[in-house]
């Protein structure tokens, strides 16, 4: 059944939704927590959205979370609240989710919405980057799988074709003993947008680094990650030698170029980002 009011669609199935996207360029609304604020108009007046609207957050098919061959699949319309309560969602994601907004927003905002909104301050993004998340984009023609860092191209810019819907986020298996961190720096604990965020993964085997990944949020147009620098850490003895640590921090110092805005300054962001990295790589209390 279709509920149609002024070019808006609310289909019972994912298949119908996808075929509508193939016919018409639509504004997709999941939780609407970004869309409704972006298009806000005066009190009493409906938000001004130019394109036809398609609602997706009721679609059961987009709310499944399951394991397949060790990889975790998360439905694009899982809300923060649903993820907090799901036993398969990694604890480090739950820690990050508890720092997103406040309960009411967490009951509407979705993982897919956070990704597709592609804000430099999107709080799920640093962890998704270090988990090497893959995104499943579905159209009438095919399922296309894209790496998150190829999908997100800049603030509100994503590599989605008009006829595609993000249906699933895949987190490839992460080794159990990996040390993980997520830190968000903002003005207050609830309802505050990140000034800087940082996610790190470090795996040490037999006294040597076996895997290292870092992503910084809100310090550039997209997450800052450098696989080149990460590689320099492989096989290094842990605890790290001072020269190795300094080199990694210096590498990031040269690629982190934040801006001044109403929330923070470039200098503050950069200093804090580098301190978080150093803290993660040296902290004994953390693990």
């Amino acid at each position, binding site marked *: 059944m279709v*509920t149609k*009011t*002024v070019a*808006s669609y*609310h289909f019972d199935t994912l298949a119908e939704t996808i075929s509508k996207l193939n016919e018409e360029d639509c504004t997709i*609304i999941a*939780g*609407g*927590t970004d*869309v*409704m*604020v972006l*298009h*806000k108009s005066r*009190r*009493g*007046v*409906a*938000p001004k*959205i130019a394109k036809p*609207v398609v*609602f997706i*957050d*009721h679609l059961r098919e987009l709310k499944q979370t399951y394991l397949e061959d060790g990889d975790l699949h998360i439905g694009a319309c899982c809300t923060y*609240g649903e993820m907090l309560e799901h036993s398969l969602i990694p604890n480090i994601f739950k820690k990050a989710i508890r720092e997103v*907004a*406040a*309960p*009411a*927003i967490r*009951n*509407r905002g979705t993982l897919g919405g956070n990704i597709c909104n592609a804000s430099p301050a999107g709080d799920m993004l640093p962890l998704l980057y270090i988990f090497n998340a893959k995104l499943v984009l579905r159209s009438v023609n095919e399922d296309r799988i894209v790496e998150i860092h190829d999908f997100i191209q800049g603030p509100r810019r994503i590599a989605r074709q008009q006829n595609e819907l993000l249906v699933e986020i895949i987190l490839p298996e992460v080794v159990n003993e990996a040390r993980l961190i997520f830190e968000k720096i903002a003005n207050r*604990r*609830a*309802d505050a947008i990140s000034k800087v965020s940082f996610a790190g993964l470090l795996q040490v085997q037999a006294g040597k680094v076996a895997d290292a990944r870092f992503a910084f949020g809100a310090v550039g147009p997209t997450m800052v990650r450098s696989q080149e620098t990460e590689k320099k850490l492989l096989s290094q003895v842990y605890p790290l030698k001072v020269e190795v640590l300094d080199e990694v921090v210096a590498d990031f110092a040269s690629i982190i170029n934040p801006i001044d805005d109403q929330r923070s300054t470039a200098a503050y962001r950069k200093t804090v980002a580098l301190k978080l990295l150093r803290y993660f790589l040296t902290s004994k209390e953390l693990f």
Partner: protein
Amino acid sequence: MIKFKLNGSVVETDAPSTVRLLDLLREEFELIGSKEGCGEGECGACSVLVDNLVQNSCLIPIGALEGTDVQTIEGYSKTPQYQVLNECYATAGGVQCGFCTPGMIIATEALLSKNPHPSEEEIREGISGNLCRCTGYNMIVDAIQLAAKKGDGLW
């Protein structure tokens, strides 16, 4: 036509699907307990329960509500849980100008229905999406602690 449950009765509207639930409640249904503070999800004055979860009605396009169950402060005020909250907010001084109160009560219900005996920290987190310009929050926290005690077994 969008059809959903509002305070226990099935309602229908032919308002456009992008209309905010807050506007529909206040203008079409004349339910003015839900307030507009910020209109951007930051103050919680417009809080309602959708399928028993606290949400900001200023951010909900009504088209997303098809088939859901919405409860506003007006519907909630007919429940025994509300009676306890009403009394405890009054006793503890958790209401001054009252603008935040309907939203605060809805957030309190959402908290207690999940966690009937919250710690102070959990209470503060539960109402962290609701701003109050008057009380300084401590009296609201007291009210919720009192309600958890007095209403033991209700939630």
